[in-house]
């Protein structure tokens, strides 16, 4: 699988990143090289090997359903805009849309 400029622009859009064309030219070959590393796996004998998402087979740790009192998290100090005990965010839909 090779990656072209369109793929890169799609990923940038999904990540809400906006970069100039010159940087796209710079990053695209880097990204293509990264993906080509994966091809190295093709040389391994992987017949019958299940794909795995994790490096080890550790099971998930579970927690009892007991509430804990939370310390003051000073949320207002982490919020760019704080109003009536809430994070205040700019308009979500732009003007004309509905």
């Amino acid at each position: 699988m090779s990656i072209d400029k369109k793929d890169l622009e799609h990923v940038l859009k999904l990540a809400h990143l906006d970069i100039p064309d010159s940087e796209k030219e710079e990053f695209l070959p880097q990204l293509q090289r990264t993906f080509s590393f994966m091809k190295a796996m093709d040389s391994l004998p992987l017949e019958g090997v299940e794909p795995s998402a994790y490096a080890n087979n550790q099971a998930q740790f579970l927690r009892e359903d007991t509430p804990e009192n939370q310390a003051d998290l000073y949320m207002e100090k982490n919020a760019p805009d704080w109003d009536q005990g809430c994070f205040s965010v700019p308009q979500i839909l732009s003007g004309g849309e509905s």
Partner: protein
Amino acid sequence: MTEFEVVIGIEVHAQLKTKTKLFSTAANNFGDDVNTNVTPVCLGMPGALPVLNKKAVEFAITAGLALDCEINLTSVFSRKNYFYPDLPKGYQISQFDLPICGLGHLDIDVDGVTKRIGITRIHMEEDAGKLLHQGADGIAGSTHSLVDLNRAGTPLIEIVSEPDMRSASEAKAYMVALREIVQHMGVCDGNMDQGSMRADANVSIRPVGQKEFGTRAEVKNLNSFRSLERAINVEVKRQKALILSGGTVIQETRNYDDATQSTTSLRGKADAHDYRYFPEPDLPPLIVTQDWFKTIKEALPEHPVAKRERYASELGLSQFEIKVLMGDIETDTYFNAAILVNTEIAPKEICKWVVGDINALLKETESSFSKTKLSSAHLAEMVDLILKGTISGKMAKDMIGKMAETGDAPAKLVDSMGGAQISDEGALLEAVKAVLDANLDVIEKIKNGKKQAAGFLMGQVMKATKGKAKPDLVSKLIFEEVKKR
């Protein structure tokens, strides 16, 4: 004209009744002050790690077993990536290719016909926060929004059905049956008005006889049975008109507006979501051991279908009574508490009051079985007083209003309401004799066959005893005395 067939699949999000959130120890409470039930995990702070709630897993499996689903003892959490202000991490932890429950089914009843609806899967995921839009009623036209993260991280199960429903009324019946299951299995409170249960309907139409499905539109966030039914009908109408005028339905998400009775597009195809699911690196696979699975199975609450059968065969309740009890978990819980207070009383005697007068009174006073001051223990006491003859049914009717108002015990109210019913034969006989002596002409009438004339005598005795005489006893005494004369 082309005849169309409607095809509906439903996704239901049900909030689990755990004390804490899915991945954090913050309280899972509706209606608390904004941003009070949050931890660094809920906020998506760097370095904060999710730890899965054991109870949420048990609830998800319980729901799966109640819907006859295959249970996957190994399941995997995945990240669903998207940006929205109610999602602090920039991704939702959900399950994707290996959910906790696989294929199952639910039987629904529409107009007396049973139909089996397939369940595709049930997966666990976390809810998002809540947006409070400012400057307008909804998101449209608002100037900015406030974010309350109390709901962020609330455990949800998403129950996905097969596209097996063919009408809005089948969709409603499915939702009703599903709500009954999650409520009676104790996994979700089913409060649709508080958003504890929300439905998205996938709606498409196809010419009758066509095998392939038409393109579907997903109608979002239907939070009542009525809006589910209406939204589907509105969407079907839209798709029919569109196709008949030569247009094509596009796959998209649509919002239903109850006020205008219309659905509108939420996201165009151009920015269709690309969620880039991948296995959640912070959480290893969830493995349910055979032992744990066995414990959950053994602790399963009674299935609603079995409960209905037991109510009919063992308790002798009518279909109407069963419908009322099963339709509202609070009513059912109250009834079950009341019949345990005094097991000498036949449950049917208790049920009559729960389903009848008390239910009506609570509706009228906008109260509910969980809020009323009339406790289940007091109800049992009152029914006991009726069965012992201490009070009449009529007195009881007045009494429930007073109990709901004051929370007083029936025994206390008997006195303040003018004392117990007179069921002492000797005392009543005096009153009956006095009335007969004063109404010799009426006695003649009864002797001549006009038995209904006894009603007048009954009225006189009641008047003399201020309504406290036990009616059946008075009636018996009147006829006995008339015979003697």
